[in-house]
């Protein structure tokens, strides 16, 4: 299993998870609608009976936007307030959902019951992981941009042109992006580990994921990078298709709306795809690694797989008694699985 297999396999697996995809999309849609409704009331009131609003149908109109905003300057406060509520709420929901997403993918059981079981079972541990990584991201951001802030003035006074300043600042953003992707990777594998082991030992999980990510750095990092960059060309194509659409007629508006929502659906798809690919990669590598290191203790949790794996490709998290025999069976199954993957790669 390399990153490209994980990437394509993740895409396929996500496609099977339609119920969950639609649920996630619906949550995004409903939440956004709820948030936008009071904002729209303000906008509607602000325009009153004015015809100016129709000018906006034909595209960007700076004068109208400027006059509207200067007459309705409380709009910014309002939007900020909405965002301050909706972003943490959506984030919390997504932490909850991530347990469900991984669980359905792991079980190959794409029902909402499996989804919610997984979501509930993993919520607290995933919340702890997510908060830990947010703190880590903030700390790294402070460190990276702190250094930038402390050195930029000196760099400014010696730089020969704005080109070197650009690259200097860019290198900090790039460094932070790399660190951020790296942290996100660890966070993803930590979730996989915790879910697969039904473990609450966050620190151990983070440590093992860190080792795992470093050990398979090229695959884990570039898989994350590939997944993060995938929306860009899609957005470009979407923008090219839609940017001349005026939406001035009912039909035009409906087409535009549908295209907008298709893109949002793609973003949701991408979210699940990201988990699916990571899990895909992890299941193979992790199991292999587990066997090689013969880590008996953590192995315990995997034994159930020996019975599962003949029907399902992956393993379940339910622990059962450890026996040498079962290990052998499991090992044999895994070998088959790995060979199968290698064959398909050829």
């Amino acid at each position: 299993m390399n990153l490209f297999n994980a990437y394509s396999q993740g895409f396929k697996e996500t496609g099977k998870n339609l119920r969950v995809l639609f649920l996630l999309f619906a949550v995004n849609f409903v939440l956004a609608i709820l948030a936008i409704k009071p904002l729209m009331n303000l906008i509607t009131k602000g325009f009153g009976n004015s015809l100016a609003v129709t000018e906006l149908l034909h595209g960007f109109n700076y004068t109208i936007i400027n006059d509207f905003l200067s007459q309705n300057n409380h709009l910014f406060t309002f939007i900020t307030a909405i965002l301050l509520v909706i972003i943490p709420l959506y984030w919390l929901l997504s932490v909850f959902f991530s347990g469900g997403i991984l669980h359905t993918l792991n079980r190959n059981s794409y029902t909402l019951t499996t989804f919610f079981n997984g979501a509930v079972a993993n919520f607290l541990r995933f919340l702890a992981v997510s908060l830990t990584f947010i703190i880590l991201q903030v700390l790294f951001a402070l460190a990276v941009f702190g250094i930038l802030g402390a050195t930029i003035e000196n760099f400014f006074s010696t730089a020969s042109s704005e080109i070197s300043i650009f690259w200097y600042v860019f290198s900090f953003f790039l460094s932070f992006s790399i660190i951020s992707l790296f942290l996100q990777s660890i966070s993803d594998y930590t979730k996989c580990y915790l879910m697969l082991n039904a473990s609450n030992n966050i620190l151990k999980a983070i440590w093992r994921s860190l080792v795992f990510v470093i050990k398979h750095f090229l695959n884990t990092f570039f898989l994350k990078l590939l997944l993060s960059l995938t929306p860009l060309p899609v957005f470009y194509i979407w923008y090219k298709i839609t940017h001349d659409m005026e939406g001035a007629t009912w039909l035009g508006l409906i087409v535009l709306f549908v295209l907008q929502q298709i893109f949002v659906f793609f973003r949701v798809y991408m979210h699940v795809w990201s988990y699916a690919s990571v899990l895909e990669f992890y299941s193979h590598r992790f199991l292999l690694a587990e066997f090689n290191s013969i880590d008996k203790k953590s192995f315990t949790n995997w034994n159930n797989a020996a019975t599962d794996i003949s029907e399902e490709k992956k393993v379940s998290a339910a622990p059962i008694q450890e026996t040498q025999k079962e290990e052998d069976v499991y090992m044999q199954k895994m070998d088959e699985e790995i060979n199968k993957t290698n064959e398909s790669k050829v």
Partner: protein
Amino acid sequence: MKPPAIKFFLSIFFAFFAINFQAQYIFNLPLSNRQANYIIRVNLNTENKMLTAVQKLTYINQSADTLTELQFHAYMNAFMNNQSTFMKESNRPGSSGNPEWDFGFLKINKLSLADSANLLPSLTYFSPDDNNPDDRTVFKIKLPGKLMPKDSVILNFEFEVKLPKIIARTGYVRDYFFIAQWFPKIGVYEPAGMRYAKRGAWNCHQFHANSEFYSNFGTYDVYITLPQEYVVGSGGKLMDKKEDAKGLTTWYFRAEDIVDFAWTASKRFKVAEKQWNHVKIQLLYQPEHKDLVQRHFDATIAALEYFEETLETFPYPHLTIVDPPFYGMGSSGMEYTTLFTAGSFWNEPEGLRFTEMVTVHEFGHAYFMGMLASNEFEEAWLDEGFNSYFETKILDHYYGKNTGLIDIAGIQIGDFEFSRSGYASLKNKGMAEIYRNAWDYPYGGYGVYSYQKPAVVLQTLEGIVGEKVMYQILKTYFKRWKFKHPSTRNFIEIAAEVIEANSNGNPKFDINQYFSQTVYGSGHMDYAVTDISNQLKPGAQGWFETTGNLAVKNEKSTDQYESYVQIERFGEVILPVEVLVKFSSGREVLETFDSDQKRFRLKYSGPDRVVSATIDPNFKIPLDTNVINNSYSITVKQAAKRKIFATFLFWLQNFIQFFI
């Protein structure tokens, strides 16, 4: 100053006057009255950032008054310390910990008449605007005799300048030098009748945070000596260039009929040249801005063409554009008639027209601060405001009405739209009036009231009188007042004259009232359509007398509507505005609403209802600060709101998805 320096000084001083320069001229006939003519020989010490110079000023008293005193600008002293009026007004933090190198000064070491009478003891610094005892930006000298009308006086200066780290568009950074406000420059003597002068007096203001120019026309012969690896550009035409054995080069520039002289030097400059008709355009650019060279030329030529068409051909045969390095950005966006600094950055996208904007703007000053040379201290709008109006006209003409400034990633902003928004979105629109001393604007007001609002006021005037008449006004103003320092009053008189000539006996637009509201007054303009009503005309009901008898009538409602459109004025400014009224039958009526009432109803009756009304449908009156309330429709198109809803929803959905 140390003794060896004096020796050196004297040697170049005498050497300078010993040389018999070959007289070369740019214009066969002077364009201006050439009241103050300078010959300056200056050495730039690039190591200690010092200028040492000798200057010969020939000043002609062109008034009918006898002068016994002369007044001068010594603007480099604005950067002498943090107590100067400029520093106090601009709230600058002062030194970054290295005052010796951050601040600069102008020190006059010798001042004498041609007959070598020493005038230095009579030199007195004074502060006519604010009595600041620490400000040394203006000085006066007593003449030993009388300077009679039409007589001239020759003054010889020896001075040194310590350059500041670039501030207010002058100084040095590393090996980049932009040398402006650097020599003792004589003030303007205004005889009775000139501008607002009731009796003759000097008009010589201190250097302020927000204004630079009011000077005499004249000629400049400037000899600049500096290490030969430096590339030099100036507001003059390069007449000669000589290298000596010590590795120094002397550049001789001559400029005629300009009001000030600035120059620049840097080792990093690359030179590009372009000929446009009779004008040789030279661009001194940074190597990393090679891709932007053509954009500078295109914008300059666009401006040259536009001004040629609308005012007059640019008369000077030379024009220098300076593209400062990023570390010298403090000198960007500055004008000196035949030299200006632009400002660009590496890889600037074509859809961002900042380079074009600053180029067109600074070039345009040649016509206002340069050739008209109004008093920027007292009437800044005559320069910055008129120039901003032209800047927006040119950018929006060449780069698109709604894309003149920005056209990138679906965001489109016209240059005029942008200027207007600066004023229209101001919370307190009435905090000042346009006509005010530049240093008297409330904090942050200078930009709005001397650039943006004037551009809107002039554009609105154009909307009212029409483009043809507007350009006739501007052309007449320019032709009549070029090289003569006009005032606001002079412009208004010409506007009134041209409008009168074009009125064909029709009831005319009161231009004086227009300017008293918009330039001398601080009120804002905001008309709104606040209501539309359509009622069916009731049938006759009750007792009616017909042919002497009372008879009862009980008619049903007619199929005729009684309608009105309610117009309200929320601002103080009263102007005639057009109102486009649309009816249910498709009929349209364009009315001109000209009333000083705060609330007014336009009434209609007929078989069709009024469906919408729009004030200023063709956006001729951009002075109206709120276009949203300019229209009213009884059936607001829901599609627009739904589109806004869908778009907001889409971006919010994407935005929240980003955080997970």
